[in-house]
């Protein structure tokens, strides 16, 4: 029989997520120019990173790597990567190949090598000139209130 969980167990899951993140020395936020469909079974090794000069993965090595809570406006749980004021930016520091279009982002564990998550940018970001930039904000999970039934 499926039991309806209480918030005690739901919070346990979110704490477990945070602990698993903390067990990694880093979580690496990487961009890709490969079109893909976000999925739990996505193979991150198929995702080609940008090759323009200046691109580097964003390394999250601060604790806690995930914060979590309840969004009362949306009535969902959330787990957000990095400290609240963390902002991500990919930018080119040289003349770049205009075919370099960042379409999405994925997060890999620095130690567990897990695919922590992936998503598509709302708008693919073309890198065609020096200092073109792609801000990446709100790397997070949105978690249904009843995700654990």
């Amino acid at each position, binding site marked *: *029989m*499926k*039991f*309806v*969980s*209480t*918030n*005690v*167990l*739901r919070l*346990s*899951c979110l704490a*477990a*997520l945070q*602990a*698993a993140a903390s067990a990694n020395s880093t979580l690496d936020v990487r961009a890709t120019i490969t079109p893909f469909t*976000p*999925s*739990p*079974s*996505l193979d*991150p090794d198929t995702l080609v990173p940008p090759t323009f000069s200046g691109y580097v993965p964003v390394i999250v090595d601060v604790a806690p790597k995930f914060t979590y809570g309840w969004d009362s406006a949306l009535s969902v749980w959330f787990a957000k990567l990095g400290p609240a004021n963390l902002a991500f930016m990919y930018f080119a520091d040289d003349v770049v190949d205009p075919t370099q279009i960042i379409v999405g*982002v*994925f*997060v890999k564990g620095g130690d*567990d090598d*897990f*695919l*922590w*998550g*992936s*998503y598509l940018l709302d708008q693919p970001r073309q890198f065609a000139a020096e200092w073109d930039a792609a801000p990446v904000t709100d*790397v*997070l*999970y*949105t*978690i*249904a*209130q*009843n*995700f*654990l*039934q």
Partner: protein
Amino acid sequence: MIPGNAILNAIAEALAADPSTIAPLLNPPKLGLVKTAFVPGPNLAITDYTLADFVTSTPIGAIAGAQNSGINPVTLERIVEMKIPAGGWRWVVTSTTNLPQTIYGAVLYDNGGTTVYGAVLFNAPILLDAVGQVCEVDAVQFAFLINGIQ
């Protein structure tokens, strides 16, 4: 973002082994029958229901330590399931004391009786009114909603 399967598995495994909730090494949770109408939900509290009180209705203790986790091959849901204790989650009426009694569902709660972990309503309330009647919960499962984390 869409989590990878490894993360989804890790969360389920962590819950199944959480010593602060359903998987303590000592004083494991208990499953009790409920004799009052109630509504399972995220904020269900001990005071929201009354446990059954027929003679053999004593709540059944879970097995201490890590519980089971896995993937339902049909629904593909990740499942955390309490290990089934010897004799099962099964209550047999042996006395007419406090009968008749209607059982509405079951609740899993901590050993000290202060924190509810989950609850289920039976498909239909079960009227117990005679010796030999049985009330049984086949499994105590928590399922992770497909696409519940995005």
